[in-house]
């Protein structure tokens, strides 16, 4: 029996649009390098992450170590101002803590809460979106109605509500790390809707594709198909949302902490630092609030820019 040799590799047919699309898709790295602003933003983001991870080792002081704090050092202006102290580059706060160090430690907490809450939101949103999109029917209706209702409230309100409820429920048993996890859960639960909606939409399309039918044909169960076959195909929009969501989560944490329902001053995040510093703004000790503020703005802006670029680069239609 004669079976002909397959099409020669590299000489395969490609319709014009398909080929152009492939050239474009292949150019993720190229598009990244060509876009100076995004390169800078990515570098800033990466620097923040590195600095915050390494904070305990590179920070000039340990702001949590009460033994090293001295009230004599309090209210020191930045090093370049009159009365500044070269030991405290960005000055100190009312308790004599080094502002630069508190920013490094604060960013560490902010980023940790951001990443963990994004992972939580992503896990919930992606799973519910897959279930809603793949099964359809009542499951879809219930999940998406809940999502719709939640969307009618601003995320910050949802986060405040969950935060409040959690605090009341945990009550006096609040341990030292309690607030941290309450914030992760509160923010995570506030942002799952966008993942669910996007994933549901993509799943609705993928579900009817023939590769899913081929998998059903050999008797694979729905969850196996959802997670092994469909999930890899919904990941690129999810990645985009997650990046933009990270900036939002950091901002939400800062807002909650600023409002005083976030992390306590003993374990300050960037938001807590801004709240503390706010009290001294009127007395001219601008450095206590300005520098954490700049750090937060820079971090959020950088992450957002990377997210925007990623969205355009991965899927121009998502705009």
């Amino acid at each position, binding site marked *: 029996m004669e079976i002909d040799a397959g099409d020669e590799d590299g000489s395969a047919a490609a319709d014009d649009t398909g080929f152009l699309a492939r050239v474009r898709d292949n150019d993720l790295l190229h598009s990244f390098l060509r876009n100076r602003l995004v390169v800078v933003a990515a570098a800033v983001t990466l620097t923040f992450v590195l600095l915050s991870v390494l904070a305990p080792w590179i920070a000039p002081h340990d702001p949590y170590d009460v033994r090293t704090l001295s009230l004599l050092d309090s209210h020191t202006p930045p090093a370049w101002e009159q009365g500044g102290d070269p030991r405290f580059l960005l000055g100190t706060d009312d308790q004599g803590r080094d502002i630069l160090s508190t920013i490094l430690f604060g960013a560490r907490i902010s980023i940790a809460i951001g990443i963990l809450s994004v992972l939580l939101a992503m896990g919930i949103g992606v799973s519910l979106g897959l279930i809603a999109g793949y099964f359809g029917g009542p499951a879809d209706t219930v999940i998406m109605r809940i999502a719709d209702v939640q969307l009618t409230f601003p995320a910050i309100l949802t986060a405040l509500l969950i935060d409040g409820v959690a605090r009341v429920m945990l009550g006096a048993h609040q341990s030292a790390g309690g607030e941290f996890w309450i914030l992760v859960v509160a923010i995570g639960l506030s942002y799952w809707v966008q993942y669910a909606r996007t994933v549901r939409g993509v799943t609705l399309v993928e579900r009817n*594709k023939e590769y899913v039918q*081929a998998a059903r044909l050999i008797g694979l169960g729905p969850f196996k198909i959802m997670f092994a076959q469909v999930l890899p195909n919904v990941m690129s929009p999810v990645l985009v949302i997650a990046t933009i969501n990270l900036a939002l989560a950091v901002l939400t944490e800062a807002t909650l902490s600023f409002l005083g329902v976030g992390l306590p001053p003993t374990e300050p995040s960037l938001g807590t630092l801004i709240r503390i510093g706010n009290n001294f703004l009127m007395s001219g000790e601008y450095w206590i609030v300005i520098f954490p503020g700049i750090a937060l703005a820079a971090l959020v802006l950088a992450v957002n820019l990377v997210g925007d670029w990623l969205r355009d680069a991965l899927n121009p239609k998502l705009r």
Partner: protein
Amino acid sequence: MSEPPLVDVRGLSRTFDVSKPWLNRVLEGDERRLLKAVQDVSFTIERRETFALVGESGSGKSTVAKMVVGLLQPTDGSVTIDGVDMWKGSAAGDIKALRRRIQMIFQDPYASLNPRWRVGRIIADPIRAFGLAKGKAEIEHRTGELLRLVGLDPLDARKYPHEFSGGQRQRICIARALSSKPQFLVCDEPTSALDVSVQAQILNLMRDLQDQFGLTYLFISHNLAVVRHMAARIGVMYLGRLVEIAPAGALFSAPQHPYSRMLLDAVPDLKMSGRPRKMIEGEIPNPIRPPPGCAFHPRCPLATDQCRSEVPLPLAFQGRTVACHEAGAGRI
């Protein structure tokens, strides 16, 4: 014929509910809308035979394919394959064993391969699901064998689908379909997304594989010339019903249903022989509100009052089955 037919489809029907959501219906005072995609379709397929279903859009041919292969539950009727009823009254074990022996080749070679999976994993999926090979080495060996069988390189297993052309992808789909060692392949428009020269490669490959493995094909297509080339017997569908079933030669030399006749006449004449042709007038009606009686009557030059009111039943007629009041009256 000593052996019973491999596939026996009886009175198959499928209705889809295409109404608006409940709330809209209540508020807008709309009625439920039912789409009878397939109505009372019966046919058999002999072992090692190619049976084709041909029809235009809305004819229900793909819906029949999905019900035969087990992807879509029929509203009514039965699909029996090798004595096992696919949809009711069979033991779960029998159904599972049956699934291994039925595979499908799809129309769109781009959508039928998971873009995020390597080709090797795609082809090995059925092997793993049915436990047909143990261990990584054995599965890899089998995958390579299948790739070579369809004219590709075993090393192609490491690539992703986007690295292949449409024709090569369809070869990968065929390799996946063959990986569970099936008896019966349902091919839903397997070449309609391909260029003609590639279509010829795939059709030749499918015929070679049929000879080599004694496969039985249910071949769905809108292209009469392709169907003529592949099938021994052909069923012509129109708006959810089979209007004619006949051996390929007989259908093409002397169609007995007016719709079959017109479908043949609509095929472009490559030989440019200038054969006399009748143009089909009008358009395919909306399947949600099909015409009463014979659904073809508004476009049929032979339609009588009977055609406008009574649905014609399929009648055995000179070795074929025709559903037309006028069949045999010598007017077609």
